[in-house]
């Protein structure tokens, strides 16, 4: 009997192993429960009336963007606000995964480790969230952008605080009356669930000259005394590089303001692959930024395998260059802020312990340019607006001293170019950086500029109105 007793140690070990396993699982549960709950198939939060328990979403001025009334989800009463903020707020379908309502739905519904998703009604403390966006600005930007009927994006953010004031993506739809997307209309709604501000990349075209400029400022001591000769096209590395105009004899600042391709193509070739790669890397082109639990789409710049002609094209934002709108706004904001970027955020405040639940923390700061480089870029980008853009359009960015650059990126034969405009305002009371892009459109100045103009004016009015 004693022998049998001794052998029972084996089953005792089994039982202890089981208890240990339960302990380990409990630990895993406590640590990960929040993310386990957040699954698209979890019918306790999504599905039919999944948002009936979710709290309200407000803009920075307290306007209701979405709230639950009698178990119905109600959105803002202005259709432009609804459509403009669709990708930021989200809709009932939760198809837009980067929207607040999708990514924080369990926190908005009052998830707790103790009660799971079934907190008794009388104890339920639903969480409301206040976003940094301004409904009016978003509506204004959306109306202009949607007027083209193209895919596009426009983002404006405060480069001192990181607060995103305006974030608009097209195509959109009305969350209060979502379309039934079927075979007949799916081309119209292609990519509709994607927030182009965060999740898309585009060929940059001439806006990339900002990066090439940064490389030149840091590596060409005689930059400001040099001149280039533009005859409208030039053979570099066995193939032609073309320019939009014949600029003739042209210095660096004018080449920037008039966006001369020849000058920048030659600068890129002269600086060489390594300098271009390292400057692009430092400017964060290949980075993905984490913004409120969403990672932005990664830009791309790599000329390691490029030939001379491709290197030339890469310097003016063609070749296989790609950038993300939010990333461009961050880069421009850094220039306006003396080289230091502030990571953007959409979250201003939350009721109860919401901010803690979603793990909100103060936006990071990081250096993208040297202070001196930033100052020189600031000069030349301001010059671009004051010397050139202001003469092209009266009342452009009225009331703001904006530094900017447009871009017109060729994307192939079948499509019209991507129209870009990126930049920022120098004003102390409106430290705003922006990036606008319209796909398959035309000249940056013609298409992106009006969107940027509307968004910046409205955003500045919003900030100034707050005193």
């Amino acid at each position, binding site marked *: *009997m004693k022998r049998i007793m001794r052998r029972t140690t084996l*089953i005792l070990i089994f039982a202890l192993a089981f208890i240990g396993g*339960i302990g380990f699982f409990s630990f895993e549960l406590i640590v990960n429960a929040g993310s386990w709950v957040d699954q698209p198939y979890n019918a306790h939060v999504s599905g039919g009336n999944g948002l009936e328990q979710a709290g309200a979403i407000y803009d920075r001025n307290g306007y209701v963007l979405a709230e639950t009334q009698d178990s119905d989800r109600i959105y803002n009463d202005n259709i432009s606000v609804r459509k403009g903020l669709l990708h930021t707020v989200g809709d009932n379908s939760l198809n837009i995964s980067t929207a607040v309502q999708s990514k924080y739905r369990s926190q908005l519904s009052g998830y707790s480790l103790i009660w799971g998703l079934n907190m008794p009604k009388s104890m339920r403390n639903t969480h409301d969230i206040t976003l940094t966006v301004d409904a009016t600005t978003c509506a204004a930007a959306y109306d202009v952008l949607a007027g083209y009927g193209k895919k596009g994006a426009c983002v404006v953010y405060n480069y001192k605080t990181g607060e995103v004031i305006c974030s608009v993506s097209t195509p959109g739809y009305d969350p209060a009356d979502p379309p039934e997307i079927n075979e007949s209309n799916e081309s119209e709604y292609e990519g509709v669930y994607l927030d182009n501000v965060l999740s898309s990349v585009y060929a940059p075209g001439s806006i990339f000259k900002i990066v090439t400029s940064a490389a030149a400022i840091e590596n060409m001591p005689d930059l400001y005394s040099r001149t280039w000769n533009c005859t409208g096209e030039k053979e570099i590395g066995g193939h032609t590089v073309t320019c939009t105009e014949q600029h003739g004899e042209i210095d660096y600042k004018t080449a920037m303001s008039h966006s001369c391709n020849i000058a920048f193509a030659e600068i890129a070739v002269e600086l060489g692959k390594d300098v271009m790669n390292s400057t692009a890397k430092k400017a964060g082109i290949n980075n993905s930024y984490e913004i409120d639990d969403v990672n932005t789409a990664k830009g791309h710049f790599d000329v390691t395998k490029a030939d001379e002609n491709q290197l030339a094209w890469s310097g003016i934002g063609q070749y296989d260059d790609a950038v993300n709108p939010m990333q461009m706004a961050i880069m421009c904001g850094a220039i306006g802020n003396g080289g230091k970027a502030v990571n953007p955020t959409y979250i201003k405040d939350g009721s109860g312990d919401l901010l803690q639940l979603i793990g909100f923390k103060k936006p990071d700061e990081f250096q993208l340019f040297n202070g001196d480089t930033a100052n020189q870029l600031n000069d030349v980008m301001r010059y671009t607006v004051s010397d050139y853009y202001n003469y092209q359009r009266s009342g452009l960015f009225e009331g703001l001293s904006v530094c900017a650059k447009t871009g017109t990126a060729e994307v192939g034969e079948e499509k019209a170019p991507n129209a870009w405009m990126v930049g920022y305002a120098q004003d102390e009371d409106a430290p705003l950086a922006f990036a606008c892009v319209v796909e398959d459109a035309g000249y940056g100045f013609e298409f992106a500029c009006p969107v940027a103009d509307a968004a910046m004016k409205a955003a500045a009015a919003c900030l100034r109105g707050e005193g």
Partner: protein
Amino acid sequence: MPDLSIIFDVGVVALRILLPVYAIVIVYQCYAAMRRRRRTEKPLVTLCNMKTGNVIPVLFWENSIGRSKSSDVVVQDLAVSRNHCVLLRRSEGWFITDTGSTGGTFVNGVPVEGRAQVLINDVITIGSTDFEFRRGDEFQAPLKSSWFFSKVSDKPAIRPWKLMLMVTLFHFFMAVEAMFWNDGTNVYAPIVLFGALAAVEWGFFSVSYFAFRRVNFELESLGLFLTGIGVMMLVRQVEKSAYVQLIAAAVGMVIFCVIIKLIENPDKISRLRFPMMIVAVLLLLTSILFGKITKGAANWIFIGPFSIQPSELVKIIYIFIGAGTLDRLQTKQNLLEFIIFSVVCVGLLALMGDFGTALIFFVTFLLISFMRSGDIKTVILAVAAAAFGVTFVLRFKPYVADRFKAWRHVWEYAQAEGYQQTHVLTFIASGGLFGVGVGNGYLKQVAASESDLVFGLLAEEMGIIVAITIALSVALLVIYTRAITTRSRSTFYSISACCAAGLLVVQLSLNVFGATDLLPLTGVTFPFISSGGSSIMSVWGLLAFIKAADERTYSLKR
């Protein structure tokens, strides 16, 4: 006028917090009752060394006597063999059996052949040592008792019928919850099912109490508590299978009673061994010849609406044949028979090709080999085990590889191999500590949620506290089984009980950790809770071994 909805809400909250507490109380009461009504730790008889006057207490029903240090009675005499003889207590009195010693064993100078009765004041001669066989109450020195039984009063912890009432009430609360959470169809189904369940529970209780006149019902109460939870969980899932499960459980209880009756006399078990082996082989053959092949495994036989996995029942027979009384174990009787039987079973299982079953059988084989083997036997059995293992790996390799692919990476395969586990984790987290209510979960829509993933279903609907309490209540059977090991009436009972308890824990681990991605998903059932007719029958069969190992089962009558 107070707001009624708030009162109602507070009531629901209170109920949801109390239910887990109630579950813990029930499990505690079951285990507390297992410790009570025990004889105190004192020797049954003593052996007095006539030369030295040294008194050795004899503590167990079956005692090995020999020179080996692991013997129950160690005799320091070079003329004594390592495993000399076995002293047994039976209802007819005390007996001694010589287990192939070199010097032989003598009672009052007469050599022992087979089994010889020993009376008080008889002289037992082992080697050159003489012992006088004396009464146990002459031994006064205190003895150390297992912690499980120490410092326990003799009064019952709770009257059996009160414990059963608590269990039934718990199931009633589950029925009420299931009535509350419904899709509007058949609101009263849960209460009807509860009626049937209560009838089975109290029917079983009455049979035990009045027909068998047993005093103790705590192990059965625990089994009924768990079985009832499994049945009630099914009511909002597949109502029909709830009744199938209940019927199967009732059959399981009959099997439970039959097994306890069959093995009442440990010496008569050997007569049953051969017929049992034939039955086992026939059962396995039936499932190979007539079994319906599902997922490449021919493991199921369909008889009308019922599906049976014969291998589940063979598991019980296997333990039955593997265990033996101490004198038989020590003389290596039936060892060859057991090995041949093992090889046949292995061969038939390999033909069948069901991963979960083969795994469980392998564990059973290892457990029983380990529990019964001592020296040379270990080697032989280990060789057989290795052969088993190789067959196992060759047979199931592609299948195993597939299961391992998603293991610990379920979120990367959330739409494929990890589909079931990710859903389990999500819904466990959604349930929180107290659950969303019986019938109100969503995991029930996932395939196999009532069997392979039942831990997730429990946690989602009844909360993680109840789920873990239930899992632990099964795992703790090991502690109980271990505590009663040396108090069993024969090694047959202690070996079979330990194998049964070990097997339950292994099944439990594979099920719970498989569903929660701590182990690969193997499709093994959660004892008592998982839906599955043959599973619940075999679990009740296993429970019979544990019940039989408790000496109170046969000795204590009302």
